[in-house]
């Protein structure tokens, strides 16, 4: 009985004194600035890599931008300061969302030629193309299959992919155009890649943060693509890329580079190798940031993009003649 009472006195005492709580910043420009800096400081996953690449120093960023986040700043000025600070990360997965604007860093594609024209694409697709599994597809006149997938946010289905591959069954090769595909759901990328895979293939590595330190990471976990149990493509394939290929689309290119019959044609992809998370600031603005980094099969970073096997750019001459330089190159490559 005495033991019982002892337990009953001490356990509640420990419980009462052990509140699990988190520091709150005030809802002032300075408070929002410090909250944002801390969220990124504790969760962002590419500090070390970007320090090596271009000398990013997040502690120094705090000192530079702290003086700009004055408490007298109105919400528009504060938004500009915070967006500028986030742009130092050079990451398309880092955004600041308010009710009046979306803060962004889009230089990863805005500083480069688009290498894609929907006007030209229409000349290849015509108006009698098919649509299945969110993909537009048709057979070009040299018996090359062409399919365009504009966003990995759009769902793919096994039955849809079966229909598309069955339609292309007698083609000499296949062009998968994912130019300006800004990403979406990784499982869609995996589902599509599995149609080009004949054995379990190592395609990359993943890891995640295990603590607040800039280098607190888990072990690298291998990423495999396993062959689809449905129809699989066994002929040459070209993936068309530009700088607008980002995030899950970047991962798709990373997967496809591992398969022997696949070639990448176009420009380097935009990158975006960190799986994004979101959090909010005291004033309600939402911040998105890269949280889980992924790597290619050689453990190399793909955050700033994946180079193609063949660099091809759209030429003015081809454009004037109504030809898409990348599609034309891919057709020749598949005909070889």
């Amino acid at each position, binding site marked *: 009985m005495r033991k019982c009472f002892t337990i009953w006195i001490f356990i509640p005492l420990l*419980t009462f004194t052990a509140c699990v709580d988190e520091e709150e910043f005030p809802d002032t420009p300075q408070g929002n600035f410090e909250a944002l800096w801390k969220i990124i400081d504790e969760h962002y996953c590419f500090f070390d890599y970007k320090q090596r690449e271009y000398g990013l120093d997040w502690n120094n960023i705090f000192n530079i931008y702290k003086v700009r986040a004055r408490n007298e700043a109105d919400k528009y000025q504060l938004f500009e300061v915070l967006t500028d600070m986030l742009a130092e990360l050079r990451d398309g997965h880092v955004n600041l969302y308010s009710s009046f604007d979306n803060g962004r860093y889009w230089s990863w594609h805005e500083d480069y030629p688009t290498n894609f024209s929907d006007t030209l694409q229409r000349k290849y697709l015509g108006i009698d193309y098919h649509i299945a599994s969110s993909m537009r597809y048709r057979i070009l006149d040299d018996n090359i299959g062409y399919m365009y997938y504009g966003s990995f946010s759009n769902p793919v289905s096994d039955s849809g992919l079966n229909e598309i591959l069955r339609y292309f069954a007698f083609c000499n090769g296949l062009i998968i155009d994912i130019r300006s595909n800004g990403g979406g759901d990784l499982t869609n990328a995996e589902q599509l890649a599995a149609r080009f895979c004949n054995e379990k293939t190592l395609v990359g590595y993943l890891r995640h943060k295990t603590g607040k330190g800039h280098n607190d990471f888990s072990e690298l*976990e291998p990423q495999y693509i396993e062959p689809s149990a449905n129809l699989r493509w066994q002929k040459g394939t070209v993936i068309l890329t530009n700088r607008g290929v980002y995030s899950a689309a970047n991962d798709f290119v990373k997967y496809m580079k591992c398969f022997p019959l696949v070639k990448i044609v176009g420009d380097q992809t935009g990158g975006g190798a960190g799986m994004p998370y979101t959090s909010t600031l005291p004033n309600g603005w*939402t911040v998105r940031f890269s949280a889980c980094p992924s790597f290619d099969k050689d453990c190399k970073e793909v955050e700033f993009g994946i180079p193609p096997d063949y660099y091809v750019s759209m030429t003015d001459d081809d454009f004037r003649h109504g030809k898409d330089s990348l599609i034309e190159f891919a057709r020749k490559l598949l005909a070889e």
Partner: protein
Amino acid sequence: MKDKLLTLFLTLTPLSTVAQESTSANIIGVGQSRILDTYINQEKYSGTGFTYLYIKEHARLNRRWNSILEHEADLSTTKDRSRDNQMIEGNYFLYWGLYRHWQFFGDRLLIQAGGLANANLGFLYDTTSSNNPAQGRFSMNLMPAAVATYHFPLFGKQFTLRYELNVPLVGVMFSPNYGQSYYEIFNRGNYDHNIVPTTFVSAPSFRQVATIEWRTSEKWSLRVGYLGNYQQAHVNNLKQHVYAHRVMIGIVHHFTKTIRP
């Protein structure tokens, strides 16, 4: 032969019976919920929550031990301090346990102490987040628990004060690691300390129910009171709490049945 076997069975079976007193309480509540989960967000959320609580207690006369079964279901909608972002919380708790009891002042004060086994299943859903919007909750705990019950007359009516206290001792809970995505856990099957042993230090939760009950008839009572369920955990460098404060009202059914021991 069949009749002989039946006679033998009845002869060997004890004929004595024991009276079992049971109560079952159906109680609903409303009140404030306060939420923090640093996996989803650094900001705290608060709002209104609703709870349904079912308590069933069995006590056999002349026995020192009795049993208790509780179901608790909570649902809350909360907002952060900017009132722009919303979080929905849902939790189900199952408690089952045994109490040893002691009576004082005749039978007016009943003290019960023992242990509960607890299972919890729940979720948090941040309606404004697109990439890490949800958090799953699953835990099991062994909990020291106690109940004090005091019967007293007032204005010719019978009243009962009841106070119940539960704290966790040891258990296990599910948690993603600090920055681990649900994609890694469930799509890729990458385990990283996702089933975490807990103690009252790493998961200092605490639950109390204080009620007053008016015996309106031999079989029925009206019960009103307060439920405080303070779930907390600090595991995998993640902090989380759900503080539920509820004003409760419900009815209690008292019944006695005779059973073979």
